[in-house]
């Protein structure tokens, strides 16, 4: 490190006399590196920063004009109402607002309530396995669902839960129950959503806890055993404190997503039959914004949702700092 700096600086100072400008010389000297950066910078500009500018769509009466790039159409479009808030007002006063709020919150809340502790428990129990091969076999099996596409996972559920031929309903009938039309009943949606989420992410979710656990010094356990601690006491007093920082950070990130349930999985799972419990902000954005091409309204709903998410993230972080002295920032 020192060597490179010196040689660079030496090179720079020799030529600085000629070039007259250190910065300009450096740029010339690093032109290959800078050229390597150009495609990446351009990519982030086009697909991250231009869309950020595109948020203006939510505040304007935007129409896609043929032959014009959207950024100029946004620029010339009139503001939506006095403060550009017409679409927000229409959404908040609209008939769907509270239903979407409730569905989004409940799906996110149940996902955390059940989905958050289970990988931790799994990691703790897995960590107790002494046989290395058995342990890695269970782990390898548990990763499998993570690699399946969300379409395949929902597809499997739909096939296995199908009313006439799915194995679940076949078993129900054999046991003397009525078959259940799982995907047609609003009352089942949340259960299906959360349980499939747990099924898919259990193995990978446990990985970061296992990583934290692998750092615990074996001597701690040995001295605990000498002091007569039971295995549950060891778990409680050594293992859990060791993973506490990771637990808190995962929880903060999870809480920030309470209202951030993504559209992808729900779009695959829901139908007009189950909108009552399944429709959330992001699916509404997709339907109104992209399917019905009401760009301004869709963008307004999306922005509203993002703002609430940031609020949740900040609050969760603040609370975590107060209570556990761990935080993201």
């Amino acid at each position, binding site marked *: 490190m020192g060597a490179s700096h010196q040689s660079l600086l030496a090179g720079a100072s020799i030529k600085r006399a000629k070039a007259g400008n250190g910065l300009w010389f450096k740029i010339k000297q690093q032109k290959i590196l800078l050229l390597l*950066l150009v495609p990446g910078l351009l990519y982030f500009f086009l697909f991250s920063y231009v869309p950020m500018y595109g948020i203006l769509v939510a505040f304007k009466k935007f129409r896609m004009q043929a032959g014009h790039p959207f950024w100029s159409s946004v620029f010339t479009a009139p503001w939506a109402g006095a403060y550009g808030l017409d679409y927000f007002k229409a959404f908040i006063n609209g008939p769907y607002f509270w239903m979407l709020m409730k569905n989004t919150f409940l799906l996110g809340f149940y996902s955390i309530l059940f989905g958050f502790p289970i990988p931790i428990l799994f990691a703790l129990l897995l960590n107790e396995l002494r046989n290395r091969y058995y342990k890695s076999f269970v782990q390898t099996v548990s990763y499998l669902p993570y690699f*399946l596409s969300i379409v395949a996972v929902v597809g499997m559920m739909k096939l296995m839960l199908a009313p006439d031929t799915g194995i679940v309903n076949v078993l129900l009938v054999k046991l003397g129950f009525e078959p259940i039309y799982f995907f047609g009943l609003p009352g089942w949606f949340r259960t299906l959503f959360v349980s499939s989420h747990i099924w898919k992410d259990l193995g990978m979710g446990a990985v970061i806890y296992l990583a934290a656990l692998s750092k615990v010094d074996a001597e701690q356990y040995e001295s605990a055993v000498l002091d007569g601690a039971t295995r549950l006491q060891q778990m409680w007093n050594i293992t859990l404190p060791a993973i506490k920082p990771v637990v808190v950070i995962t929880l903060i990130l999870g809480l920030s997503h309470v209202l951030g349930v993504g559209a992808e999985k729900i779009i695959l799972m829901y139908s007009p039959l189950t909108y009552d419990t399944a429709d959330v902000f992001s699916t509404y*954005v997709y339907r109104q914004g992209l399917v019905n091409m009401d760009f301004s309204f869709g963008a307004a709903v*999306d922005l509203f949702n993002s703002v609430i998410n940031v609020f949740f993230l900040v609050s969760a972080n603040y609370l975590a700092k107060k209570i556990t002295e761990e935080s993201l920032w």
Partner: protein
Amino acid sequence: MVRDTSVGSRILDIVIHLVMILVIVATLFPVLNVVAVSFSSPENIASGQVALLPKGFNLSAYHTILFEDVHIPKSFLNSVFITLIGTAVNVLMTTITAYALSKRYLVFRGVFMTYVVIPMFFGGGIIPLFLVVKTLGLVGSFSSLIIPYLISPWWLIIMISFFRTFPIELEEAAKIDGCGDLGALVRIVLPLSTAAVATIALFYAVSYWNSFFPALMFLNDYAKYPLQLILRDIVLQNTLADQLASQGNAALANDLQESITPQSVQYATLVISIVPMLIVYPFIQKYFVKGIMIGSLKG
């Protein structure tokens, strides 16, 4: 280590083994069931006879998929194509960007770093993204599935910290021997980075193979659909139509699907879509696990 042989410890062991068996069964049963049904005869499927082993072994569903229905082989090839090209381009973009940003002496490095990190936390949302892709004229082509997703900031950051672990003397020596920055990257750094490059390639490849949402947003031509979108049409829309039909809602069911695909074909399509993952995942999972561990413990 002293073995704990108390009653409490034995009970704990039993609980642990029960949980592990539960996890194994819960994970494998759905996959085995779907595979078994896909190889069974239509009569046995319709009467719901199949659990873990095929009943009335039958390949007609696969015959239909592979030789009669052109969409599935076509979409399979589309997915292979998108995955190969997308992964190659993403790896190239991520590598060169990370390499330049990993140089501590790079001019304006702080500015560039801030610039690439901000998109990890803020975004415009899907509507503005759609408008950008549409304005650029990418809608309807394969490039709309790749170009908007060229670099994942997450993997960029991991690659940057990986390149930083290289001793600077290595490249110094290369430069003294007359290598430029590009030469050092191609001849020194990349050959020593195959494990890291392979890891991000795997991540990108799996996410390309499994993605359906960009295709749903940006493609309108059935012939260009990737496998996941065909799978959605064949399995998801059909089971819904099925369901509506069995609830007596025939009109709505007909709206959804003109003709309902036979169950055996739905199962077989699902199997075709997951087979590549079933084959590769035991080999690549350790890279993923390592990658996730590195990523999580850095923060």
